């Protein structure tokens, strides 16, 4: 641990605004990052500043029809306990049966994150008592998970300007398959908890990210990229608001060159924004605590979004002993590739890693690169296009239907279309202006039938969604550009005649 602390500092210490990661030479102050763009202050002691260390455990709900070990349905909103089988309710005599789709989802995700896929992985039981875990244990993969040793590249913009993009990498320790628990609804007035097992047994992929991040912004950016990857693969819909993507952060601070500090775990983070806030708050809290001579407890804390701070979670039971043991009802999970594929096996019983690899869709980073190459747009444009669901397709559709160069079209997409959608909280799919209509408008502009200013006026009119075509609006508001030379001369002459004196002053100056 001590050895890692040293190497890690110089990798993480970078000066903001200098254009990228800058390793601070030994003996000088290592400036550590902070979401607001400044250095983490040295504190009263005047000693070297703190190095924050952030690791993440992310649970992504697998997008499948049925649960990980049973045939009950996976669905977000449903009457309580309607989507529960006897196995999910942990009735005696029931056994787990593994869902092939969940295995494929985990393999896809592992491959997309550059992991080694373990051809043999094992299932274990993790024991603890809680009302929403009817069996008293969760089936997970503690000893040998399905995928290990991957990496995720994500990007940050320096100084919140899109113009300077830095690429960072976080190591993926492992991905494991495990069961979700049911839901507890706390009824404090009646001093009871209501249990809904609809979610109990739903398949999860736990993605463990090594503590390679150093602030809230990095954590949020990494999770955002993971979210986009999962959505592109279709292995998880990864909507945080619906609990399909849950993030727990492990945070500690230490002085440069010293071993890692005691870490706390922060839970109950419901959005990317809150993730960044929670991480930054906890880093600050730990620094202040330590600088005031206090100590950090190895505890679990919850993020209170209203107060914007982390608070200790009710931990009446002390340190948990999960008593891991192999799941006796499940043999090892064996995966195959083209080489190891058995000759006579039922193909429904076979998960072929190579077959899945060949069918992986373009990941977001590849899509962005293709957009930049194909259309000549800037890298930061490609980020915005992919960041908004459906925007890249919209852009490409407009480009297909107009003669205007993509480099010009992108301005209309990002500045006009996107800002309008944001103002009215609409998704791209809900846009009152379709790609066809926008292309139509841009064609008028390209043919010089109207001016740029006029086009903006037409667009403003089109937002009303009254079904008029751009041409109709142009004619209605008489926005056509006058091309006739004679007519232009007449207008200019009229202006000069009317204001002869002022024109003379302008000419003589």
């Amino acid at each position: 641990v001590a050895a890692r602390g040293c190497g890690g500092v110089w990798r993480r210490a970078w000066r903001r605004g200098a254009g990228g990661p800058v390793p601070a030479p030994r003996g000088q102050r290592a400036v550590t990052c902070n979401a607001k763009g400044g250095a983490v202050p040295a504190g009263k002691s005047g000693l070297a500043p703190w190095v924050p260390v952030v690791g993440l455990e992310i649970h992504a709900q697998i997008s499948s029809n049925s649960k990980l070990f049973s045939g009950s349905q996976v669905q977000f909103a449903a009457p309580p306990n309607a989507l529960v089988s006897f196995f999910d309710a942990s009735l005696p005599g029931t056994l787990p049966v593994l869902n092939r789709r969940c295995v494929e989802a985990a393999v896809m995700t592992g491959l997309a994150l550059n992991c080694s896929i373990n051809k043999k992985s094992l299932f274990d039981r993790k024991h603890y008592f809680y009302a929403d875990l009817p069996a008293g244990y969760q089936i997970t993969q503690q000893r040998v998970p399905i995928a290990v040793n991957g990496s995720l590249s994500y990007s940050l913009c320096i100084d919140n300007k899109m113009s300077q993009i830095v690429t960072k990498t976080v190591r993926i320790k492992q991905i494991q398959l495990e069961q979700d628990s049911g839901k507890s609804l706390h009824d404090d007035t009646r001093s009871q908890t209501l249990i809904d097992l609809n979610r109990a047994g739903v398949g999860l992929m736990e993605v463990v990210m090594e503590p390679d991040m150093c602030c809230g912004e990095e954590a949020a950016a990494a999770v955002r990229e993971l979210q986009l990857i999962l959505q592109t693969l279709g292995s998880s819909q990864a909507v945080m608001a619906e609990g399909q993507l849950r993030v727990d952060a492990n945070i500690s601070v230490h002085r440069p060159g010293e071993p890692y500090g005691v870490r706390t775990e922060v839970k109950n983070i419901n959005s990317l924004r809150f993730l960044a806030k929670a991480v930054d708050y906890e880093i600050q809290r730990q620094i202040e605590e330590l600088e005031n001579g206090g100590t950090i407890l190895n505890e679990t804390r919850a993020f209170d979004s209203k107060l914007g701070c982390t608070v200790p979670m009710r931990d009446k039971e002390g340190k948990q002993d999960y008593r891991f043991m192999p799941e006796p009802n499940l043999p090892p999970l064996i995966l195959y590739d083209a080489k190891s594929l058995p000759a006579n096996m039922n193909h429904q019983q076979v998960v072929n890693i190579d077959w899945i690899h060949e069918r992986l869709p373009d990941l977001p980073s590849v899509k962005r690169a293709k957009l930049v190459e194909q259309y000549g747009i800037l890298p930061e444009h490609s980020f915005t296009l992919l960041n908004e669901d459906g925007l890249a397709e919209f852009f490409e559709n407009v480009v297909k239907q107009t003669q205007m160069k993509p480099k010009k079209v992108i301005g209309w997409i990002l500045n006009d279309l996107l800002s309008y959608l944001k103002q009215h909280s609409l998704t791209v799919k809900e846009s009152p202006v379709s790609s066809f209509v926008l292309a139509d408008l841009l064609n008028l502009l390209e043919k010089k039938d109207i001016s740029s200013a006029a086009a903006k006026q037409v667009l403003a009119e089109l937002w009303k969604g009254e079904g008029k075509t751009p041409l109709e609006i142009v004619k209605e508001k008489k926005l056509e550009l006058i091309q006739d030379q004679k007519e232009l001369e007449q207008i200019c002459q009229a202006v000069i005649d009317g204001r002869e004196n002022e024109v003379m002053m302008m000419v003589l100056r």
Partner: protein
Amino acid sequence: QEVTVDMLDHLEQLALVDFRDAEGVARLQKAIQFADQLHEVNTDGVEPMDSVLEDRCLYLREDDVTEGNCTKELLKNAREKVEEYFVAPPGNIPLPKLEERETFLQGF
């Protein structure tokens, strides 16, 4: 290896088991001694087996919805229910500390 009060207390907390009396603890002690015989076998270089199913094929199920929709039947098992929810206490009720609970271990 002696079985200590702390160890027994820890087990009672984790597994919610009640050793009940001296005979129960003695039985536990004998069980541990019995299992300790395994240490007499030299297992150097031998891959541990943790399941007799280790060379069986793990059956993979198709992703079809085949179960569920039996709320009424499931709730029949519930001592208390509220509108199709199971009712549980507000949180885990931890076993009281050794000094505070009525267990044979007190006098152990």
